[in-house]
C-alpha cells in the first residue's frame, strides 16, 4: 500500500508528534511533500505514505481516533480539461511528470493524478487557469 494523502490536523494537535507516531509506532514510510502548520489553525500536510511492512490499517485508525482527517490528494488537485489548450507550457516545470506529453506526434498534455504532489508549479505557468489546487 502506497498513497498520497492530505492530513488535516485540528488546531489542538499542534503539540502532538503525529508523524513520529506514524513512523515509530506503525512502521509507515512517510515522505512529506508539503506542509503548513501554524498555531491555532488547522494544519495541512501532503504526504506520501507507504506501508512497507508497517501496519497501515492501525495507523489509519490511530489518525481517526486522534482527530486527524485523511483525504486523498486527488481531491485537492483539479484539472479543468475544457480550459486546457494543450500548449504544453506546464510540462517542463512539472517535477514528477504528472503533466506530460506521452505522444509527441499529437502533442496532447496528459495529467496523471497519481504522480501529482501538489507542488503548484503548474499554477503560475498555465495562462488558461486550467490547473487548480485547493490546498490552502
Amino acid at each position, binding site marked *: 500500500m502506497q498513497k498520497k494523502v492530505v492530513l488535516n490536523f485540528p488546531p489542538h494537535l499542534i503539540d502532538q508528534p503525529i508523524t513520529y507516531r506514524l513512523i515509530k509506532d506503525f512502521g509507515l514510510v512517510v515522505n512529506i511533500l508539503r506542509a503548513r502548520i501554524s498555531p491555532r489553525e488547522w494544519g495541512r500536510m501532503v504526504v506520501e505514505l507507504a506501508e512497507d511492512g508497517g501496519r497501515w490499517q492501525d495507523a489509519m485508525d490511530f489518525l481517526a481516533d486522534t482527530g486527524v482527517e485523511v483525504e486523498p490528494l486527488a481531491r485537492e488537485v483539479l484539472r479543468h480539461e475544457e480550459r486546457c*489548450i*494543450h500548449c504544453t*507550457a506546464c510540462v517542463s516545470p512539472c517535477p514528477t511528470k504528472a503533466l506530460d*506529453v506521452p505522444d509527441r506526434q499529437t*502533442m496532447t498534455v496528459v495529467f496523471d493524478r497519481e504522480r501529482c504532489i501538489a507542488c503548484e508549479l503548474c499554477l503560475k505557468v498555465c495562462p*488558461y*487557469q486550467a490547473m487548480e489546487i485547493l490546498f490552502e
Partner: protein
Amino acid sequence: MAKTIQEINDKIRAGRAVVVTAEEILAVVKDKGVKKAAAQVDVVTTGTFAPMCSSGAYFNLGHTKPRMKLGGGRVTLNDVPAYAGFAAVDIFMGATAIPDDDPRNKVFPGAFPYGGGHVIEDLVAGEEVRLTATAYGTDCYPRKALDTLIRLADMNEAVLFNMRNAYQNYNVAVNLSDRVLYTYMGVLQPRMRNANYCTAGQLSPLLNDPLYRTIGVGTRIFLGGGVGYVVSQGTQHNPGVRRTDRGLPMGGSATLAVTGDLKQMSPRWLRGASFTGYGVTLAVGLGIPIPILDEEMLYYVSVSDADIVGPVVDYSEAYPNGKAEILAHVTVAELKSGEIVVNGKKVATAGLSSYARAREVAQILKDWISAGNFLLSEALEPLPGPESGYVFKPLAERPAIQTLTEGYSNVASVK
C-alpha cells in the same frame, strides 16, 4: 502540371478537390514524391493556435436615447478600458488591456486574471458583459453616463481586427540569469533550466508558404472559428531575415494583419490568457489554405519540423535590451522532443503555441473545403517579400525635452 486557383475552386464546388493537412502531406510526399503529390493534391491546410498580443476587436454599440458621444470619453467592458477615440459609439478593445484597478506588477509577479482577451472570449461565448461609459456631453450628444449589460448579439458590428498575427517563426526563450523571469514567453527558470518556444512548426501557415507566393492581401482564412481575411502584412513584418536553403526564415519574419466577423467566431478559438508577471493576451486560432499551384508549392508545403530552425535567445539580457545575440539555432523537431542542447547543456522545452489545436484548425479547414463550404481566394496584392527591402526598424529616440527647449528658443528668437 500547373493549376490555377480558379480550377481548384471548380473542383471544390464539384466536391472533387483533394485536400490534406500540412501534416498529412508529409506522408503523401514520402509515399509518392513531390511530382505525383503535386498532381494529385489541390489544397494543403495549415493551422496555428497561440497567444497573439496584437489582437483586438472593434464594436458598434448602437446609439442610446438620448444620444451619447463616447468618442473622447471613457468606456469599459467588464471594467477593462476600451479605446473610444472614434465616432459616437464605435470602440476598440485590445487583447492586452487590463482594468485600471488591477494591481499589475506591484506585488510581483502579478496574476493578471482578467483583461481584454477575456472580454473578447466572454463576448464570443455569448455572455453578458457590463458596459460603462462617461462622456463630456455636446448639444447633439447630450448624455454623459451609461451603465448597462450588453451581449455580442446586441451590437451592430463586432469585428476581430488583429494587426499582427501568425508570426512566421519565432524565438526560443531561455534565461541565463540567476533569478526567475516572468515573460510573454512564459516563466523562464534561472541558469537556462527551461526553454519555451512558440510556433506551430510544420503546420504553421507562413512556414508552408515561406516566400508568400499564395498568401497575400485578401486571402480567405480560418479565423477564431469563423471565416476571416488577410488585410495585409502585419506590423513588424520583416521578410528580409536570413533564410535556410528551403527559403525558411531562421527567426521571426513575416506577420499578418487579419480581420473577420466576431459574431461567427467561437470561444474555443479565441481564448483569453493570463501570463504571470507579464499580462493578459488572446490566444487566436488561425488557419490558411495553401493552393497547390505547381510542384514548387507542393515542395514548400512538404516542410517538416526537422527543416525549421528557430533562434535561442536569452530573455534576461539580450531580448530586453534589444541585442541581436543568438545562443544557438535549434529545430522544431528538437523542441517538440522535450529537450534541446544549448552550449552543451540539456534544456527541457515547453510550448506556448498548441500543436494539438493547430492540427484541429487544419482539420476543420480541410473539412470546410472538402464539403465545398470554403473557396480559395486569389491574393489582391502580394505581401512584401524577401527582396522588397521592407524592414522592421527599432525606434530612433529624439528626446522630447530637447525639442521643447529648441521650440522655446525658436519662439524667443521670433520675438
